[in-house]
């Protein structure tokens, strides 16, 4: 048995490399990212084609509010589900398979594993979904241009919305990962993620309208989606909104970190 070199020791960078190996070596990663990319580009192209075809027969007020940018990025709404589910799974699969015991035996200080997971998953999501949003935008505009209703990337706010869509998906991933790390269970993690993102906002409708209006812009989904909005409505300004959504994600990670240190495995 050969001796292992003396410079062997745990560092945050090495744990990040390890997490990258873990992320790229399971099928769920490939399928989920593939689904997220196809939703973003494919659904955007499909809806652009339908909308472009339908445009000449739209009522004037529909034509007036037609948003070529929104139409081409409509697939992001579905992409966020794939990214959210994968974010939960990245951590909960370690618990369901027992891999977490091996991971925490290798890194018994524990927190480097959580930080590395979040960082590697965020970087991978950004690296794939920012380009996917760009492609979805340009494919959508190319389709809409045959009806001369396209918008251009240099148009004010467009670059922010398109790149923001990729960043929004990245934060969705980190938020989901944090929630997954808190509940340590795949079904529970996905339910919690979907509940906070998509179920709580309509529930607020039972509140008096002025309460609802005051609270709803600060919910995670609404805050995050502000980065993709070009209209002035009841929402936060784009970067404040995305920043708040990022704080939600960090808060989830912080809770997960405290629990990770305290709980038995």
């Amino acid at each position, binding site marked *: *048995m*050969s*001796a*292992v*070199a003396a*410079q*062997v*020791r*745990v*560092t945050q960078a*090495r*744990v990040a*490399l*390890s*997490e990258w*190996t*873990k992320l790229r*070596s*399971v*099928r*769920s990663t490939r399928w989920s990212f593939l689904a997220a990319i196809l939703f973003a580009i494919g659904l955007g192209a499909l809806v652009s084609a339908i909308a472009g075809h339908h445009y000449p027969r739209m009522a004037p007020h529909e034509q007036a509010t037609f948003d070529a940018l929104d139409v081409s990025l409509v697939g992001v709404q579905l992409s966020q589900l794939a990214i959210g589910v994968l974010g939960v799974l990245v951590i909960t*699969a*370690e618990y369901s*398979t*027992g*891999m*977490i*015991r*091996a*991971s*925490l*035996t*290798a*890194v*018994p*200080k524990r927190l480097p594993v959580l930080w590395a997971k979040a960082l590697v998953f965020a970087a991978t999501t950004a690296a794939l979904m920012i380009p996917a949003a760009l492609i979805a935008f340009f494919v959508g505009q190319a389709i809409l241009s045959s009806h001369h209703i396209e918008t251009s990337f240099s148009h004010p706010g467009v670059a922010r919305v398109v790149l923001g869509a990729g960043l929004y998906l990245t934060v969705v991933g980190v938020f989901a990962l944090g929630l997954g790390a808190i509940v340590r269970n795949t079904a529970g993690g996905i339910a919690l993620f979907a509940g906070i993102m998509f179920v709580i906002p309509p529930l607020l409708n039972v509140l008096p309208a002025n309460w609802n209006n005051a609270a709803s812009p600060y919910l995670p989904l609404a805050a995050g989606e502000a980065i993709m909005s070009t209209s002035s409505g009841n929402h936060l300004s784009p970067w404040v909104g995305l920043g708040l959504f990022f704080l939600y994600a960090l808060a989830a990670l912080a809770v997960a970190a405290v629990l990770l240190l305290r709980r*038995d*495995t």
Partner: protein
Amino acid sequence: MIEAQGLTKDYGDKRAVDGLTFTVRPGVVTGFLGPNGSGKSTTMRLILELDAPTAGDVTVNGKHYRDHAAPLHEVGALLEARSVHTGRSAYNHLLALAQTQGIPRSRVDELIDMVGLHEVAKKRAGGFSLGMGQRLGIATALLGDPSTVMLDEPVNGLDPEGILWIRQLLKRLASEGRTVFVSSHLMSEMALTADHLIVIGRGRVIADTSTEDFVAQASGSLVRVRSPQAARLAELLAGPDVTVTPVDGDGLLDVKGLKAAQIGDLAAGNGIAIHELTPQQASLEDAFMELTREDVEFKALEQEAVA
């Protein structure tokens, strides 16, 4: 070297490990023996700090496991519960763990060859048989060339060839000066591999002794004697450390505390005829059962109470 001091762990109101104090020394194979549910796996999780003790303390090579800069170089562990992502290949599993502390790729290849998983290294670990899973677990344990090797029930699911391989491996690791700590619920398996035994029952240490002493104590302590003058012989044999139990009305006695030769000599010296004189080899399994019987009985009662 593993040192536990008053190690205690409660899960809810159930005490899984109760004030364990023991030392596992380098250079020998130490068997960690106990019935199922006696706290062996819990103890190992406490050593790795996967679980936090309710009370007491345990260190590995003088430090808490968590405080080592290269944990996999200090302790290599095979836990009883599977600790592998079923969707990942054996190779990537080992690689990911190696990368956490800069263990080179060449070491991963070396171990895959050593445990005989070369053919299936790129296949998903979820499809592995129990035996292949154990081999992967052992490769994981040895990844960091650890000075302490801790294996929970390593022969589970292995074929006879695999069991032999484990025995030789454990002995070799110990001969290289490593601390080798192996749990089992099978006394016979431990008798073949372990130099030292720590026996636990219901979360407590009930024996901490060399295997040799344990075996000596277990066997040869009971001698069966048949004599037509059994009553007289029983009187002669009686002494402070000797118990004589009549087995039947036909002159058969069980004698504890004397060797067969002593009994024969005593009988001959007093002119007592002996028709049978047999040292009873209590099996190790019997000895172990005897030692842990109370704990198992307690558990059965507990289960009855629950049911």
